[in-house]
């Protein structure tokens, strides 16, 4: 089997690859957890697991979906079983550091709150499509859904955001 991440050179190549993909991985984890600290923990655990299994990765281009899959499992394993106190969505988004929040446009913060308020079923396909650049077929494969179900979720996610944040736009089909 071709193992591009075996041996010393493979270690270095894999570390570099992880470094490149870390921003995407963090953002994906953030939108799973909607919490920066939790996202950092998920990323940490994901990279540790990936490091141990790196030789099983057959090609670089498969790394991103592979890491996202590990991140989703880590999030579920480490955090979904824990019973967090219910925190209002506004507080979650507002818990960004004031220094970072200050540089964000109000429009972006409003959108961030609206996305955070979406059900995970709608939010995750949207993150995979808009932020990760996955096709609807790839999202279906990643989430174990039919492509039709993914399309429906993506449509509804945008419909909710549009109604909440851009009510002046043309009406959607029902």
């Amino acid at each position, binding site marked *: 089997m071709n193992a591009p991440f075996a041996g010393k050179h493979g270690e270095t190549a894999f570390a570099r690859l992880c470094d490149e993909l870390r921003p995407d991985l963090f*953002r994906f984890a953030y939108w799973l957890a909607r919490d920066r600290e939790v996202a950092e923990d998920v990323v940490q655990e994901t990279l540790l697991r990936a490091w141990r299994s790196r030789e099983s990765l057959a090609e670089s281009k498969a790394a991103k979906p592979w890491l996202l899959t590990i991140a989703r499992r880590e999030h579920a394993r480490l955090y979904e079983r824990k019973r967090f106190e219910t925190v209002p969505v506004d507080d979650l988004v507002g818990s960004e550091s004031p220094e970072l929040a200050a540089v964000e446009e109000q429009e972006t913060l409003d959108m961030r709150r609206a996305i955070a308020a979406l059900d995970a079923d709608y939010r995750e396909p949207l993150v995979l499509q808009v932020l990760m650049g996955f096709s609807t077929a790839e999202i279906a494969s990643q989430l174990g859904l039919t492509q039709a179900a993914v399309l429906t979720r993506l449509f509804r996610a945008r419909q909710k955001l549009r109604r909440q944040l851009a009510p002046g736009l043309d009406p959607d089909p029902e």
Partner: protein
Amino acid sequence: MECLEFRRIVGADPQHPGAEALEHAAGCSRCTRFLRQTLVLDERIRAALAVPVPPSARIRHQSSTATLVPGMDRRRWYALAASIVAGVLVGTLLWVSGPRDSLAQDLVAHLAHEPQALVVTEEPANARTLGRVLDRGDIRLRPEVGTVSYANSCLFRRHVVPHLVVQTDDGPVTVMVLRHEQPAGRVAFSEEGYSGTIVPAGPGSIAVIGPANVDLEQVTTRVLSAVEWRQD
């Protein structure tokens, strides 16, 4: 195709509506407007999803990792600790063997986080947004700079700095106004397919960065004469 179906397709995947949908839009002004509005909405979604990423050097202390997984047995904990050490070693190796961080590298790395800014367009940035960005950066910008298609206040090297994209005949060029960076002199660099210039200006400097094939001289001169620095 009917308008209803068109809007369902566009609402699910506005970047890839397909030939049939585009053919419909060509003959339907309302659906064309709907497509345009949805693409704008998607840009807002993309900007909101791109939450700031913490620095990569952050490796949690082992004790906090231990509390992360309370049920972990000793052998597994040792394996995890060994992995952390291995990860730190590889990171250190990369840091030692690779080029040291420089202002130029940091600028190019920053650009990589906002690739959506670098699109060819005649559409100027929202005037209100641009005004806020300039205010936060304590600068003014004369109109002769040309079309500013993107403006954002970015956290760069622990300071909030104006990040602008100026459209030129050769394509979009990034301008970062760096009040807190004072290079000894003009610096030209070429990194990862970008070429750039960092020029001392006002109390700090201005960086102008474009694709490797762009002649930055003219736009740099234009930008330098267009930026007015306000007092601290």
